[in-house]
């Protein structure tokens, strides 16, 4: 892979690279079968986990959104199980992806902040280690923060596709092979400080600006090359990319699956910047408008007009991504992978365009930022099923472990998903939280946490530095937009959920108290 990347930098076109990747010896993608032989038989299914970053169920037509953002996904869902009440445990990539990979809530894996990783105690507790006995493992994360988490569990990854492999730029230092053993701290050093790429000052006084010049020139070159089809600029992960290349690359990666494999593919779209292709540019300029919601005291106080505009851009980008990623779904079907694989399509967290808040860098825990899609296709599934039980991103790992015949790890905090070996339990409590300003090594002090149960949500915001402490309680059945806070009326269920929440917080904090 690295040799090919080198060739790429010497003038090989990206499309040629994608063709060449198909010639890569299969042996580098698959673990020697002798390692797996004892546990594997011909019926062992693959697990393909497809993650779209910052993808909110609130903006997906499959989940009732008025704008037709994802018609192609709806077709994929015709042969799959749609989970209507699935929630991410975190509100941005680091905690959200960590929960997905470890089956742990953020309070256990402690990856609360941008740049943080899973704590040492749980670093080996991932979906890759849980299925290591029966499956070859493959990981790709286009988002650098998610890629850090893959590096943390790298020794359980038989194939780790480089973060920039499918981008049109390759300028991140940490993913250079020489830092493979120490990529997480190399990332914190190089990408966070030494070369900051446009944000703040580089710690490299002389080479920093020269490297910036090189990168900016490369961005300009790539934008000239591919920009015609992207009126708002090329999609961007810090490195630029084009949507069709990413999908083509993912297809090439999956073509090499041989023997039972767990493949984790984490794509950057529809994460911001929201840069759709020409075809979808302005698609939702007219028509439906979102309901007004009052500005939250913890929000960024962004005005309504900007939020509506950004929501429209986001929806256009989702629609654009849907029209590209449909080729991946088509490939899965035509290649026969849908016949012998469990395919999970989900997200690490959602995106918010309301109450004065934009994006997902927020303490708020409303549906748009925590309610994420989950669509699971079982091997050979021919009809659509709909499940309304409340589920969490921490359930993916125990589900995969259960379905693969591996024991559900004792550390896992989730349960197998209903319809895939789990029970339909309406009264189950699902938690989401944010603690990005809290230390990973101390009790939770600055945080927000929500408990969702029985179609109700109780959110607790505790930010002493901002002198803000408040409970909010919503009936999601009758008030899906969470407009009417019922907490002040003191309903019995709110009191019960509050007790459960406070007990949980006490339990979480106990080991961290001195």
């Amino acid at each position, binding site marked *: 892979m690295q040799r090919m990347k080198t060739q790429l930098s010497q003038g090989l076109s990206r499309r040629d690279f994608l063709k060449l990747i198909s010639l890569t010896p299969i042996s580098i993608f698959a673990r020697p079968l002798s390692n797996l032989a004892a546990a594997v038989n011909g019926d062992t299914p693959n697990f393909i986990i497809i993650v779209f970053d910052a993808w909110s169920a609130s903006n997906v037509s499959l989940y009732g959104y008025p704008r037709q953002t994802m018609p192609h996904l709806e077709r994929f869902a015709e042969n799959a199980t749609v989970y209507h009440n699935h929630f991410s445990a975190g509100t941005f990539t680091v905690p959200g992806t960590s929960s997905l990979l470890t089956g742990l809530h953020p309070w256990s894996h*402690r*990856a*609360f*902040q*941008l*740049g*943080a*990783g899973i704590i040492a105690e749980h670093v080996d507790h991932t979906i890759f280690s849980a299925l290591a006995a029966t499956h070859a493992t493959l990981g790709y994360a286009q988002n650098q923060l998610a890629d850090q988490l893959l590096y943390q569990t790298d020794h359980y990854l038989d194939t780790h596709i480089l973060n920039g492999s499918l981008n049109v730029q390759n300028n991140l230092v940490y993913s250079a092979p*020489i*830092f*493979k*053993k*120490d990529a997480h*701290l*190399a990332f*914190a*050093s*190089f990408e*966070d*400080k*030494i070369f900051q790429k*446009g944000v*703040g*000052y*580089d*710690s*490299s*006084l*002389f*080479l*920093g*600006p020269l490297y*910036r*010049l090189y990168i*900016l*020139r490369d*961005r*300009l070159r790539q934008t000239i090359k591919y920009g015609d089809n992207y009126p708002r600029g090329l999609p961007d992960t810090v490195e630029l990319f084009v949507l069709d290349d990413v999908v083509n690359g993912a297809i090439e990666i999956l073509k090499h699956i041989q023997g039972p494999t767990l493949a984790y593919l984490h794509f950057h779209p529809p994460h911001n910047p929201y840069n759709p292709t020409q075809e979808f540019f302005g698609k939702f300029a007219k028509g439906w408008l979102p309901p007004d919601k009052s500005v939250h005291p913890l929000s960024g106080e962004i005005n309504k007009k900007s939020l509506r505009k950004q929501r429209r851009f986001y929806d256009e980008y989702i629609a654009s991504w849907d029209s590209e990623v449909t080729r991946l779904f088509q490939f899965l079907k035509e290649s026969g992978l849908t016949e012998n694989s469990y395919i999970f399509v989900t997200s690490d967290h959602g995106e918010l365009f309301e109450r004065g808040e934009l994006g997902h860098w927020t303490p708020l825990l409303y549906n748009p930022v925590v309610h994420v899609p989950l669509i699971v296709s079982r091997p050979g599934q021919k009809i659509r099923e709909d499940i309304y039980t409340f589920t969490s991103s921490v359930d993916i790992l125990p589900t995969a472990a259960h379905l693969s015949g591996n024991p559900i790890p004792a550390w896992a905090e989730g349960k197998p998903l209903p319809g895939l070996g789990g029970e339909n339990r309406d009264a189950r409590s699902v938690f989401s939280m944010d603690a990005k*300003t*809290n*230390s*990973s*090594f101390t009790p939770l002090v600055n945080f927000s946490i929500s408990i969702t149960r029985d179609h109700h949500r109780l959110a607790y915001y505790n930010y002493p530095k901002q002198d803000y402490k408040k409970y909010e309680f919503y009936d999601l059945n009758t008030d899906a937009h969470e407009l009417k806070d019922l907490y002040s009326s003191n309903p019995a269920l709110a009191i019960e959920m509050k007790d459960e929440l406070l007990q949980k917080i006490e339990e979480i904090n106990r080991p961290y108290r001195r």
Partner: protein
Amino acid sequence: MQILQNRFPHRSEIIAVLSVSVFVCHSWSIWGFLHELPSFLLYFRLAEISVVFAYMMAFAFLESLLITAGLVLAGAILPSKWLRDGFAYKGFIFVAVGSIAAFILQKNLRYEFPSTQMLMLNLVIPLTLIALFIAASHMWGPLQKVMLDIQDRISIMLYVYGPIGLVSILVVVFRNLF
């Protein structure tokens, strides 16, 4: 061999310029590190923070060596009067003016590739200033003395930053090899 040696500045002068480069690169890097430290403390343990510091110091040390090597090479290639003669104070001027120019360039470079005009200004102004300072210090001895005095005081930091840089390189190499 003797001809080749004659082309290069004297070792003591090279070390004097290296000490200024090391001082500037390391101090700037430490400032950046301290700026990030509060967020690192939220999620990294002391050992991990030390490793990040080692990466930054190792890079700063290599950057200093590169800058000094570039100046030494330029001194060897250019006519002696331009850079090699009086390498210590001329190198000091290059590093000092270059640092300010690099800082301004960093400040101006964000998300767009700059215009050719801006790039030329970023190149021409520092080079002009360097030429002016060299000419001024050549003609006016006290200015040259002030610079050499500052350089002399800064050189003490080489004994602090130098070992930190070397140990940091070892830490980075060790972590990535084993």
